[in-house]
């Protein structure tokens, strides 16, 4: 049989610009290439700046996960300058980041991923009464009424009848890979709409503490939102009550809508529990410090590495073992392309080496992406919700073990089912439930501290550059919604001399390294992976979306010498 070349560019329903090329053979994917097609050079721009400004610049790497780079940057600078932030500031950052996770994961499920599993057109055939019965069986959510489902369906009928499919135009409706009964499709479409209003409400937690969203404000040394119960312009009882209510509404939606929907939909797609596993190693840097950020044993989601899918052991993580390779990337290294460099020594010189635009195929080029290839001790690593839940499961984390077991029992599958496209999507839901619950704990602790008289939100002893050493360097870690993130900063005479980020989508979207090891996207696409109709690459979207790609985040460059990027060779 001959191989069919498949190109999906743009991959839609993601953040940023991603291209997938594949070769299909006998209804399966035989080979795959992942390409990041955008480059912004933000790390070059960091050089010579005030390190206290770095959070604002790096925050603009991504407006979807709009919290993660800012916090990682603050942590890197605080590490370099030996600043310990007040416990209140840490709790506020946890609440902000916690809500980022919850909101981001729910949006991903309904608005970016659902259309891979939910056939909108099929919802027309649903019986609203049966839909309501189905919904009430799995959840006490009060809006799951027959009236509401009928109303949503009537509107759907009207517009499908009009022939104007809008943004649903050219979707793969009726594709045989869609398996949900019409009632489940109608349920998902209805909740897709409710989630839109819900996210707008709960994300206001960022606005109370950070002034706006996207891109709320942060501060090296703590948080700028002062606490004073007796003033109108500060964090007071009125604002704290607003926060309290948002957390309650966030948790309720997660537990009564997202979680039951996810389990119900997953139960129709169990074959995807053996598809799309990919690389066999999983890395979590851990997140949500419940003490000082340096006390990594006090992270709510634990740190560690699972190797070769062995869940009996968790290996320690040491950031010194992270290296980036450029064998397949449009860059060059002074010591040659075979070298791997740790971020402290990181260097990047862009050197485009693909075909001239417009492209037809990139798969014939040895170099094919703006992403570098990060490797841990030479191994590719998957990062993200699945990695975190696997590390937590293997480490014996009680909350994680309990809920993972609940899911496996419900779907009647074993732990091996986690290493898959479906496992990735389920893990995202699992941690959303855990974090929505945990936010209550952080809120209660913050209120307890305020009650006891501690309102400090900022540690100012090292604010002035005159208090800094002539040279300093720091590492800021953070496990973001999409996975392990690291910022490395070097400071000389009060200014940034080098800045480097290794981000989740760089780990997951990385191209092949010098040993020919594929990155996680690529490896997942060739792991027992179907592709029934290359003209309608629905299956590719399922697996790629299960990673929740965030391409702007993956864009990576540093020119250590501070030079402009050198000439690009267009072949």
């Amino acid at each position, binding site marked *: 049989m001959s191989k069919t070349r498949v190109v999906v560019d743009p991959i839609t329903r993601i953040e940023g610009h991603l291209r997938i090329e594949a070769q299909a053979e006998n209804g399966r994917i035989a080979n795959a290439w992942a390409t990041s097609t*955008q480059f912004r050079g933000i790390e070059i721009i960091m050089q010579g700046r005030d390190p206290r400004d770095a959070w604002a610049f790096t925050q603009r790497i991504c407006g979807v996960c709009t919290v993660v780079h800012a916090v990682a940057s603050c942590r890197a600078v605080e590490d370099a300058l030996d600043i310990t932030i007040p416990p209140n500031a840490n709790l506020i950052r946890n609440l902000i980041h916690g809500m980022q996770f919850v909101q981001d994961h729910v949006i991903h499920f309904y608005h970016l991923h659902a259309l891979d599993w939910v056939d909108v057109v099929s919802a027309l055939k649903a019986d609203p009464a049966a839909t309501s019965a189905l919904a009430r069986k799995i959840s006490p959510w009060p809006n799951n009424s027959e009236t509401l489902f009928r109303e949503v369906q009537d509107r759907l009928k009207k517009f499908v009848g009009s022939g104007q499919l809008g943004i649903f135009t050219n979707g793969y409706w009726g594709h045989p890979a869609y398996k949900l009964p019409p009632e489940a499709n109608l349920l998902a479409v209805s909740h897709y*709409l409710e989630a839109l209003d819900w996210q707008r409400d709960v994300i206001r937690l960022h606005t109370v503490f950070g002034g706006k969203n996207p891109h709320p404000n942060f501060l090296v040394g703590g948080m700028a939102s002062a606490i004073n119960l007796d003033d109108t312009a500060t964090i007071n009882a009125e604002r704290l009550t607003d926060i309290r209510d948002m957390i309650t509404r966030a948790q309720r939606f997660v537990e009564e809508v997202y979680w039951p929907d996810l389990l119900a939909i997953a139960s129709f797609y169990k074959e995807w529990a053996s598809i799309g596993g990919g690389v066999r190693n999983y890395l979590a840097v851990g997140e949500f410090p419940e003490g000082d950020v340096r006390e990594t044993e006090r992270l709510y989601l634990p740190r560690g590495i699972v190797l070769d899918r062995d869940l009996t052991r968790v290996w320690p993580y040491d950031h010194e073992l992270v290296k980036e390779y450029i064998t397949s990337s449009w860059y060059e290294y002074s010591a040659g392309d075979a070298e791997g460099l740790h971020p402290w020594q990181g260097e990047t010189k862009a050197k485009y080496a693909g075909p001239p635009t417009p492209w037809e195929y990139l798969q014939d080029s040895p170099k094919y992406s*703006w992403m570098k290839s990060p490797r841990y001790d030479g191994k590719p690593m998957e990062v993200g919700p699945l990695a975190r839940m696997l590390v937590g499961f293997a480490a014996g984390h009680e909350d994680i073990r309990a809920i993972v077991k609940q899911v496996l029992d419900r779907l009647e599958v074993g732990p091996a089912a986690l290493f898959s496209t479906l496992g990735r999507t389920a893990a995202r839901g699992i941690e959303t439930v855990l974090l929505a619950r945990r936010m209550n704990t952080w809120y209660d602790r913050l209120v307890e501290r305020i009650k006891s008289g501690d309102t400090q939100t900022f540690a100012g002893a090292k604010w002035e550059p005159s208090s800094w050493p002539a040279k300093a360097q720091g590492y800021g870690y953070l496990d973001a919604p999409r996975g392990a993130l690291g910022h490395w900063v070097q400071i000389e005479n009060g200014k940034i001399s080098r800045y480097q980020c290794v981000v989740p989508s760089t780990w997951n979207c990385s191209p092949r390294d010098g040993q020919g090891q594929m990155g996680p996207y690529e490896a997942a696409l060739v792991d027992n992976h179907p592709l029934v109709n290359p003209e309608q690459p629905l299956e590719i979207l399922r697996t790629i979306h299960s990673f929740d790609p965030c391409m702007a985040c993956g864009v990576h460059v540093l020119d250590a010498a501070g030079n402009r990027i050198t000439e690009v060779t267009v072949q």
Partner: protein
Amino acid sequence: MLLPHPVPWTDNETLREHLEARGVSRRDFLQFCTGLAAVLGLDSLAVPRIARALETLKRPSVVWIQLQECTGCVESVLRTADPTIGNLVLDLVSLDYSHTLMAAAGTAAERALHDAMTANAGKYLLVVTGSVPLAEGGIYTTIGGRTAKTILEEAAAGAAAVVAIGACAHWGSVQAARPNPTGAVGVSSIVKDRPVVNIAGCPPIGDVVTATIVHFLTFGRLPALDAEGRPMFAYGARIHDQCPRRANFDAGQYVEVFDDEAARKGWCLYHVGCKGPGTFSPCPIFQWNTRTSWPIGAGHPCIGCTEPKFWDTMSPFYDRLPDVGGFGVEQRLDLLGAALAIGATAGVAAHAVATGVHQVRARRAAAALPVLGEGSAVPPPTGGGREGGASHE
């Protein structure tokens, strides 16, 4: 991200019919028109006119392309204050093409874009987020194997007008900060023969975006613009002149260190770097996220994100304004008083004529616009700023 609504606005339906189909009451609709009039700086007499114009409107074609960016602007639009009508506008702008959210991918998605542009050539409103990298032949951002510049030029060629949303589309933003490694520029550096309105900010407030689009739909043309191509209804006044902490500034009550006693009383942030005195933005009035708060309201100084080149001219962000590179103001602002300090940069000079809220209101009243009849062609933009305006290349 943009949400496809299950009841999109169809081609032959008026907005009134469409709203009925969606279950929006007449009362809610008029309430929205009243709110919109306030946002646009028009008095209540304009409400019936806005309502009439919107009701009889047939669905315009809007194409939204995303170039070199972080998607924060799309997220911001998703957080507009009025859920019902906000969704409507979202639905409308996302109707033909939006690669963040559409169901189709790859060639099917590209075909949808091509079809939308061909079917509505010369008539659609083009919305752009993200900048255009020009260095090295534009290789730093490609979609479907084609460069951002090529995609923008093609999309702009058939557009009636262009709305550039956010600092990236406005002037390049963070990737255009020194030394601008990818040669990033804003939309108006590429599109010279079409009206371009810049919704400034990193990101802008979502409500400004929807208000601008609704303005276009209601009056058939873009709102009055300042020298930067920004709508006057939103960017006509300085933060400093609208700030609730202005009284503290005038009284010499300043936060000197974060979390000090003054910070816990909500005093002025000028001494810890606030760029409000050099920034034209509706933040204090519109506020953020269904009017929950805004940056200064949450205790952090303004970083000036609606001004061109703010990453370089407004940083270091925690330095006091006259010390900030790019301003070159000799005198200390707090000695000089607010109004004098502002003429220092070319980008904001055009505003010096009218910094007071009172003057802004007067100008808004004068700019009350006629409603265009059905089927009118789109006239050129109003507002004298752009012809002789400052360049931001």
